[in-house]
């Protein structure tokens, strides 16, 4: 039985797809057979960030409509063993995903995979609800600003009331907070909420804090999940988050403004 993880946020552009690619890759690197599914029908950019856009033949909607088999649609990642991508369609509209259809695909994937990562579209409407409906675990991706936190709170309410687990009265969806695009300098200047502020408002366990980092943009332009950039702070922070997801206890890093080194101080660089 696979564990189904939804990466969700409510608000758009907070880093869901970046996170889905990173966490999916991280789990695969740790030996778990993992598939990342793009639920953002009509926009499709998971395959770009994972660098397999030129290998897309069939997509999620084709499989649901039984125009292709799962094996035909799944793309095996070239760099990382155990990692697969089920891309979204760029041409179809959002209503192409039906609950029965999604359930069938997830059931079939469950037989052979350890983890299924669902990259949710933005919003709190049908598309986002479809992505989270079958989840066992939710990674609530949040930026340290009021509107993103408020949307995450709404998504948590939906997880509590409209997921399959909620409807069946099963144990609730496991909730994790992932704070992304965290910029300690702007937090110090009072322009962004601090980790403590967000934890206080959302009251769910903190899975990780991903710093705002140029490495992320560089990685997505190159089509390489940022977790593979082991030099970069954002890559390391995602790796920590994966370890925590797997049960390890690690201290949170990258929460403070980096201290300037001796030479930087002398030269006045930043």
């Amino acid at each position, binding site marked *: 039985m696979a564990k189904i993880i939804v990466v969700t946020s409510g608000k758009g552009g907070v880093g869901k797809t970046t996170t889905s690619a990173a966490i999916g890759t991280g789990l695969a690197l740790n030996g778990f057979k993992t598939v990342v599914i793009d639920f953002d029908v009509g926009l499709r950019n998971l395959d770009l960030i994972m660098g397999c856009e030129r290998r897309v033949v069939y997509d999620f909607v084709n499989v649901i409509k039984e125009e292709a088999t799962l094996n035909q649609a799944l793309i095996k990642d070239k760099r990382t063993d155990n990692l697969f991508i089920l891309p979204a369609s760029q041409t179809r509209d959002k209503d192409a995903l039906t609950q029965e259809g999604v359930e069938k695909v997830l059931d079939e994937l469950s037989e052979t995979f350890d983890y299924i990562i669902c990259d949710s579209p933005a919003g709190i409407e049908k598309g986002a609800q479809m992505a989270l409906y079958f989840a066992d675990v939710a990674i609530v991706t949040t930026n340290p600003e009021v509107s993103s936190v*408020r949307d995450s*709170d709404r998504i*948590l*309410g939906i997880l*509590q*009331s409209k997921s399959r687990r909620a409807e069946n009265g099963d144990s609730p969806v496991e909730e994790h907070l992932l704070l992304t695009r965290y910029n300690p300098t702007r937090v110090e200047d009072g322009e962004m909420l601090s980790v403590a502020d967000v934890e206080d*408002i959302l*009251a769910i366990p903190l899975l990780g804090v991903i710093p705002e980092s140029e490495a992320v943009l560089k990685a997505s332009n190159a089509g390489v999940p940022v977790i593979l950039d082991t030099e970069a702070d954002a890559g390391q922070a995602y790796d920590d988050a994966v370890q925590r997801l797997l049960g390890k206890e690690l201290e949170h890093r990258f929460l403070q403004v980096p201290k300037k080194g001796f030479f930087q101080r002398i030269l006045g660089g930043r």
Partner: protein
Amino acid sequence: MNDACFQLKGSAVSIIVLELYHYSVPSFTELLGDKVRQAPQFFQQSPVVISLEKLEETQSLDFASLLEICREFHLQPMALRGVPEHLLASARDCGLALIPANQRNSTELDTRQTEDQPDAQAEVVVKKIVEEKLVRRPSKVITRPVRSGQQVYSEGDLIVMSQVSAGAEVLAEGDIHIYGTLRGRALAGVTGDTNAKIFCQNLSAELIAIAGNFILSDSLQNKCWQEAAYISLEDENLQVRALS
């Protein structure tokens, strides 16, 4: 068996009372607009009684415009209360029910009735309404946070063992206890129980209401803000006190 097509019953309904002090179209529109914008859901299609008991001496009152403005803001005027003698004729023209000035409580009503008209039958009816038994409804216990966009209603007391987020709303016919931070709205005594109270570990609410009397966060800032507090209704005023 039962072929009566209706039955008459006495019942107490909680209602918003709009107490008019003086009236001019621009200032009334502006103030009402402000109030409604602060708590739009609270006012949505709410029935209102317009009370003229405290109205300053005035020659005339433009009832038509008064009601029209109320309706524009989605209030539903039901009755006029305490209309002064000289305005009675024009008040009747607007078609609303006219009710006499406020009797403070039902006991007063009871004695007056017996003095004025010693009619045994009437006395019995009045007493029956007054003695209507309070049925204790079970309380509802919520163990997880009430999130933005969610609403919880209890027919008895409501106990939230976690927080109430901004944008969430908790309502109870009885008391409300929140063992966490209250950032959203809490409305106790929603069917008119003026003895209802609200208790919370951390008062950061958007709105607090007891039996239809409400205050918004702006007016909460200077008393126990972000501290443990309880709120009760005293003489139609909400009192905030520290929980210590």
